[in-house]
């Protein structure tokens, strides 16, 4: 029961906030924006990026209508979410394949970001999913056993690795690797390189020289999803030297919120093309901006909630219900369709709090998934006529319904009583609210 009183409290405060605030205003979003900003910073979104993001969102949100059954704060989060998707998404971009093969792909990034692992994954992906014939080229001549590492991966996935064990000339190896690939008829050549710091001039010159020597069709910047505030500077520095085509975000299989994704997108405006989600060779995936957005915000539940409300209830249906309530015509058919809506949206426990009408009406009903099953069974055992005219359901009808639904007469009586209370409650509520301001649909209105 305490769950309900809690939720009711919440609802009450939501209504309070709403009353007189039909639109989002400076005042009612200030706190939410602070929360959102903090969430972004905790997710490692760059400070400046987070700030300008919040400013943009605020501007967009001001004056927007508030969904009648959504707290403005929640709606704000949803607006942030949509904006994040818009920022990180855009049109989907694949790897640039050369019109005349071979396609040359160059990896770049900091130490330990996952370049070698991703080189293997990409080769495997292009081989198995895109029917390509890739060659790997080992150009990390610095890190101990880096070449062995790539060779081991190559063996695992059945892909040849071009390497020159005793040479330290990465540019030459890249060049000869591409020549070798061409001569052997490979259509895709993936060049793995050593990790380097953006501030290491010598090493940045080296990768610039590799680029110049092999003229890649695709340069990927591989970045660890756990990277902090520096992601921006690193991405910028690599982009300046290489003008890379796309970003690979690795190690997303952990619990990092991955704000680097947003930061990088914001400063270099290059698409995130792939993500790494594990150490195995098949742990590669496309980038889904919506998943990333809800991850960065860390408020996925709220987002899902608002989304569901938005998706499930159209204005027409809400208007129809409102009409019916006003005329006291709300019947078991309507009740059933409401139940179905709720069920479509997932767990009742999670959802009950967002339905002002239902929540209040069922304040004293023990709600678990079973209870709903009983209610459904009872309503299903009613005739259409009974459903549309609850008044006609007398004693003998109740006995028949109980039998048909495998419940007891008591249970049927209980439902009848609750249904009645609910109708009254909804009506009262409607009056209450429309006294304050015009109601835009009840109980599940949409903006």
């Amino acid at each position: 029961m305490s769950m309900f009183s809690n939720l009711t409290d919440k609802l009450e405060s939501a209504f309070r906030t709403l009353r007189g605030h039909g639109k989002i205003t400076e005042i009612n979003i200030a706190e939410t924006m602070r929360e959102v900003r903090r969430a972004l910073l905790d997710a490692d979104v760059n400070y400046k990026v987070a700030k300008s993001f919040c400013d943009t969102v605020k501007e967009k949100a001001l004056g927007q209508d508030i969904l009648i059954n959504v707290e403005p704060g929640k709606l704000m989060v949803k607006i942030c979410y949509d904006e994040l998707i818009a920022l990180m998404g855009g049109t989907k971009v694949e790897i640039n394949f050369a019109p005349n093969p071979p396609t040359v792909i160059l990896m770049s990034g900091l130490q330990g970001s996952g370049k070698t692992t991703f080189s293997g994954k990409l080769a495997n992906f292009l081989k198995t999913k895109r029917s390509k014939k890739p060659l790997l080229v080992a150009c990390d001549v610095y890190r101990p056993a880096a070449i062995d590492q790539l060779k081991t991966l190559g063996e695992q996935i059945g892909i040849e690795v071009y390497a020159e064990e005793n040479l330290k000339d990465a540019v030459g190896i890249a060049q000869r690797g591409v020549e070798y690939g061409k001569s052997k008829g490979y259509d895709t050549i993936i060049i793995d390189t050593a990790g380097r710091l953006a501030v290491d001039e010598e090493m940045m010159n080296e990768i610039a020289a590799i680029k110049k020597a092999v003229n890649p069709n695709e340069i990927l910047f591989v970045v660890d999803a756990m990277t902090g505030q520096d992601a921006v500077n690193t991405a910028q520095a690599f982009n300046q030297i290489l003008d890379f085509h796309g970003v690979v975000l690795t190690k997303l299989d952990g619990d990092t919120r991955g704000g680097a994704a947003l930061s990088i997108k914001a400063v270099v405006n290059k698409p995130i093309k792939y993500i790494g989600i594990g150490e195995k060779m098949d742990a590669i995936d496309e980038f889904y901006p919506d998943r990333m957005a809800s991850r960065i915000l860390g408020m996925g539940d709220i987002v899902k909630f608002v989304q569901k409300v938005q998706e499930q209830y159209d204005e027409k249906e809400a208007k129809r219900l409102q009409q019916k309530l006003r005329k006291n015509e709300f019947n078991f058919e309507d009740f059933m369709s409401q139940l179905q809506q709720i069920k479509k949206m997932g767990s009742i426990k999670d959802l009950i709090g967002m339905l002002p009408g239902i929540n209040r009406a069922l304040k004293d009903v023990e709600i678990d998934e079973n209870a709903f099953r009983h209610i459904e069974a009872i309503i299903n055992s009613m005739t259409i006529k009974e459903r549309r005219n609850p008044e006609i359901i007398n004693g003998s009808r109740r006995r028949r319904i109980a039998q048909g639904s495998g419940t007891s007469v008591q249970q049927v009586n209980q439902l009848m009583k609750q249904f009645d209370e609910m109708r009254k409650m909804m009506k009262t509520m409607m009056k209450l609210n429309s006294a304050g301001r015009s109601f835009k649909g009840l109980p599940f209105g949409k903006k």
Partner: protein
Amino acid sequence: MRVASVIKDMGLFDIFKKKNKEEVQKEQESQLEAGLTKTKQGFFSKISRAIVGKSTVDDEVLDNLEEILVSSDVGVETTLKIIKRIQDRVKRDKYVSTSELNNILREEIAALMMENKTEDVHDFVIPAHVKKPYIILVVGVNGVGKTTTIGKLALQFKLNGNSVLLGAGDTFRAAAVDQLKIWAERVEVPIVDLGMNVEPSTVAYKTVEKGLEMGVDVIIIDTAGRLQTKKGLMEELSKIRRTIQKFGDKIQPDIPHEVLLVLDASTGQNAIQQATAFTEATQVSAIALTKLDGTAKGGIVIGISDQFKIPVKYIGVGEKVTDLQVFNRMKFVNALFKDADVVS
């Protein structure tokens, strides 16, 4: 800058070995400063910007300060703590000029880091309470620099006259054993290597066993990188720890003496999750912070010191074998603020 070949590296050790302690220390200090140049520049150019045209520390200055700290990966929570301290001080001292801000900030950051009641180490030495062999288990997420740090650590302990044995406990990542073997060769220390795909706890067992047999002073065991969310892999670490504890009666009950968590300095707030989860699984006793040469931030040191009772013991400032230093909080803060006067 980069010492490309093993031979060259070896040459460097020779010079190193001949140096006396003092020289080595001096060199390391200047290395730390050099390593932190970026951090410093980041910090101070920003602080000077924060206070430009301002005479007193007001809200705007504090806002700017917040930006500087958060942008240095200090983390929102610790940043707010620092700002609060400065606010309190401004309230207490009434008038605080911006020229004093550097000093105040230095004091507050130092105080915050010192409150973490841990002792600084001053050299790569075996702690007094340790009954040899001194066993160090190295853990952390993928790619942070565990194996590299082990190579560097082995050298430092060796330079201080200790015999060292390595255990190739990363039997999972491609060529991980080969990588540690190359480091072992570089620094000329023996290694226990059972090849790939062997149970890591078996490697740990054999390494300690071998270390006892050889009578070495220091044993350092490598492990595969793992994200702290992977329950099975974290359990594997606990198992390695338990396996080492089987030697408790032969060595000391509380072994491994050190569980060294390696963190990448460019990591953001996830470092906090890493510290929490690894501590839970293996009772982390110290942190090594790597790749400080590459970041203008390094603020994670402050955040970590604030939120954990685990000392940052070593810092990695490059890929060369000599690019490892013991971490000293006061020195760190001093290095951060060394050019402060010039700025303000």
